[in-house]
């Protein structure tokens, strides 16, 4: 394979099940130019832990698609960028206005209050598996859990949730694809979702409930409230980012545990080990493998390479997570790994907004599966994967079980 085409190979769906040898190859040069990839113009790929960590904290690296080397598609004042694709100070203000209603310091207890709800949802989904011998864990468990949770957080009525799945699917299938049809589908879904969210914001403003969207729509805080287009776009972002990634976390986690039966068995007796197991899954099989929306605002010299100003930079998180200079025996799945400061949630000012929620969901979901499934084993290994190389996870995860324990 040509040195400049490793990333293209990673993007090739044929390699979706086994990308890590390619990531090892990528890491041979910490920072290097790759043709194609997320964008026809090519990208610098950063693949070693230290260099990724450094550049995620480097203010010369921009996430603002308006300054970007990568075209972000048409944007209008009615559908503006969200904080994931903006720089400070805009990014900081919008993220703050969303975080006010999600976590510390203003709402430190919110996620803990949600925990019993999430446990109930997980238990109910597991109840629904009783009596079956062959189960697709993605469609029956990994997918409905986070989508139900994020709909609760955003205050999306139950009857609308099915439509939500469709939009979210269309949005995610397009990620990492340059095909015009995929882009068109993505745009269409995004417009439909935004229209829906705009209506929901109006409804919640008139009749606020205890959810995050109501809080954002009626915010009377010292910094004021997000303008409606931002509010709508942010809600759509939280929906997509808040469940697609978690689906993959749960599915990758279940797959990894099924491939490591002794650890799965240990979890039965030591359920608290699930906390570290989720961290190790985030390192070993990260749901977000690549961050491909950064642009240099200046020439940036790192690891013997100068990345010129104005080019696309891709952080290969999945490669950094297996960097032997940072993690001993990186190819081994070890829930007791010390100092597991993985890159699974990114880092710097764009560090995953929903990380604390994802952790809770991942822990609850895997604990429930371990407790409830009797003698689970993989039917197909590797399982079929979703097309995206960026948000990577199984399309379907068939397991055979001897039964499902009652609650």
């Amino acid at each position, binding site marked *: 394979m040509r040195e400049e085409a490793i990333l293209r190979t990673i993007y090739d769906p044929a390699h979706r099940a086994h990308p890590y040898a390619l990531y090892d190859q990528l890491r041979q040069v910490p920072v290097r130019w790759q043709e194609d990839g997320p964008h026809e113009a090519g990208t610098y790929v950063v693949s070693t832990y230290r260099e990724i960590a450094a550049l995620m904290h480097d*203010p010369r690296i921009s996430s*603002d698609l308006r300054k970007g080397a990568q075209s972000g598609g048409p944007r209008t004042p009615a559908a503006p960028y969200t904080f994931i694709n903006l720089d*400070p100070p805009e990014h900081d203000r919008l993220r703050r206005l969303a975080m006010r209603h999600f976590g510390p310091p203003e709402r430190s207890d919110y996620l803990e209050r949600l925990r019993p709800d999430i446990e109930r949802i997980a238990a109910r989904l597991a109840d629904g598996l009783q009596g079956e011998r062959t189960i697709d864990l993605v469609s029956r468990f990994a997918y409905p859990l986070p989508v139900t949770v994020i709909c609760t957080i955003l205050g999306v009525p139950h009857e609308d949730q099915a439509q939500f799945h469709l939009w979210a699917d269309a949005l995610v299938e397009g990620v990492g694809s340059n095909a015009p049809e995929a882009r068109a589908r993505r745009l269409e879904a995004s417009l439909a979702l935004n229209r829906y969210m705009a209506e929901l914001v109006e409804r919640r403003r008139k009749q606020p409930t205890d959810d995050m969207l109501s809080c954002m729509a009626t915010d009377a805080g010292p910094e004021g409230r997000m303008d409606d287009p931002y509010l709508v776009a942010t809600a759509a972002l939280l929906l997509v980012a808040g469940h697609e990634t978690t689906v993959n976390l749960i599915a990758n986690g279940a797959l990894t545990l099924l491939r490591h039966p002794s650890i799965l068995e240990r979890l039965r007796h030591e359920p608290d080990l699930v906390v570290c197991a989720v961290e190790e899954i985030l390192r070993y099989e990260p749901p977000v493998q690549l961050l491909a929306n950064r642009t240099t605002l*200046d020439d940036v010299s790192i690891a013997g390479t100068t990345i010129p100003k104005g080019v696309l930079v891709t952080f290969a998180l999945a490669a950094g997570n297996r960097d032997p200079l940072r993690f001993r025996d990186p190819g081994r799945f070890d829930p007791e790994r010390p100092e597991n400061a993985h890159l699974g949630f990114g880092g*710097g000012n764009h560090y995953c907004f929903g990380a604390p929620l994802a952790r809770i969901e991942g822990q609850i979901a895997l604990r429930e599966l371990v407790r409830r499934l009797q003698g689970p084993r993989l039917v197909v290994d590797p399982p079929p994967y979703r097309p995206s190389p960026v948000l990577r996870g199984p399309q379907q995860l068939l397991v055979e079980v001897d039964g499902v324990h009652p609650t």
Partner: protein
Amino acid sequence: MSTAFGDDKRILIVGASLAGLRAAETLRAEGFRGRVTIVGDEPDEPYDRPPLSKGVIAGRFPAAHTALPRCEPLRDVEWRLGVAATGLDALAKRVLLLDGQSIEFDRLLIATGARARPWRDPSQAKLDGVFTLRGRADAERLHARLAAHPNRVVVIGAGFMGSEIASSCRELGLAVTVIERGPAPLSGALGGVVAERAGALQRDHGVDLRCYTTVDALEGDAEGRLRRVRLSDGSALDADVAVVALGAVRNTEWLRGSGLAAGEFGVACDAGCRAIALNFIVTDDFFVAGDVARFPHPLYRHQFLALEHWSNAIEQAAIAAHNMICAPANRRPHLAVPAFWSSQFGVNIKSVGVPSAADEVFIAQGSLAAGRFVAVYGKEGRVVAAVTFNQGRWIEFYQRLIESAAPFPPEASAADRPTPSAPIPVAFPDPTAVAHEATAILTGYDATDRRVQWIPRRRAAPAHGAVNPR
């Protein structure tokens, strides 16, 4: 696993706080199986101090919830808590305790930290309502008094401790006056440019901030309760609580006469944390870590730094413990870049490097007026420090600039770099205003009897007692 320092050896750690605990954990984690004893003058097992001036005195959680987590179980460590060390017999390798007992050792770690600088007038300091804050017991007492809704709290000194206390008082809705000798809060640590922003922050949050002012006297009533605080500008404040926040005094008195270079500025040690004797010869069996240590830092021209930073205590203690038990060839230097944080008035402040080493400052990101910024500090064309207000995510980048002696002003073209921007004088207060107390003299004439001797400097009482140490 076994260590070069044999399992028949005895290690004594004097100081049972963050550094002492971290050292003991490192000794065990690295396989030292010999005897480890920890002596501490407080009755509690090691606890975390930063929350005391924040959540604890504001009543968000009790002081008992500040116990430090353990990285090692330390079941086989002997704890001698509630008893202070009073002396060191370096020749006999023995530490004397307040209860008359003594403990022999093969190697010693000095981690006695610092204590709150007391109010200069002992009779005024005894008034009911006058507090200092350093330990858990101090925080419990202060919290109880603040929870009883005093009419006015006067905080004497606007360093980090004083500013955080004022912030907690405002969180409780209490009326607060802050008395600061310098031009603004935190000016000794961060320089006048950034300190001005810290002052605006206090005023925005309803603090009655009095700069260029010191306290002449604390006045009580017949029952010995604080009633009034008399200021250097001739005015007086009615107040029922005063918190003296004039910095810390390092706990080195017990080392007088030990032959170690110990004094007001701490215990001098080399980069490997080995204590330096008064004659400037490095010792083999005495180590130092934490707030009490004074060590040379290569990034700052090998000047001796004495840092009262949480992260320094942890990093230095781990290095000291490692060096105590490893083979000499495997010793490591303590090279961590100084760093600390503070939380006050809803703002997260982070600092990396040594701001007071700078003569110019440059706003590299954000804006001072908006209260969200990265200030980069420079000296002679190189970056020596950075301070962030609510922009802590970037601090690692600036730490690397410091480590690599990057040119100042930095060229980084951040998205939120203000325009126009240019370095301006950093405006630190005159350091000669700080009183220096300890000094050393040479005695003897021959090389065989030439000695260095520590003497306390006799000095007149300062005109305004509120000495605000940098």
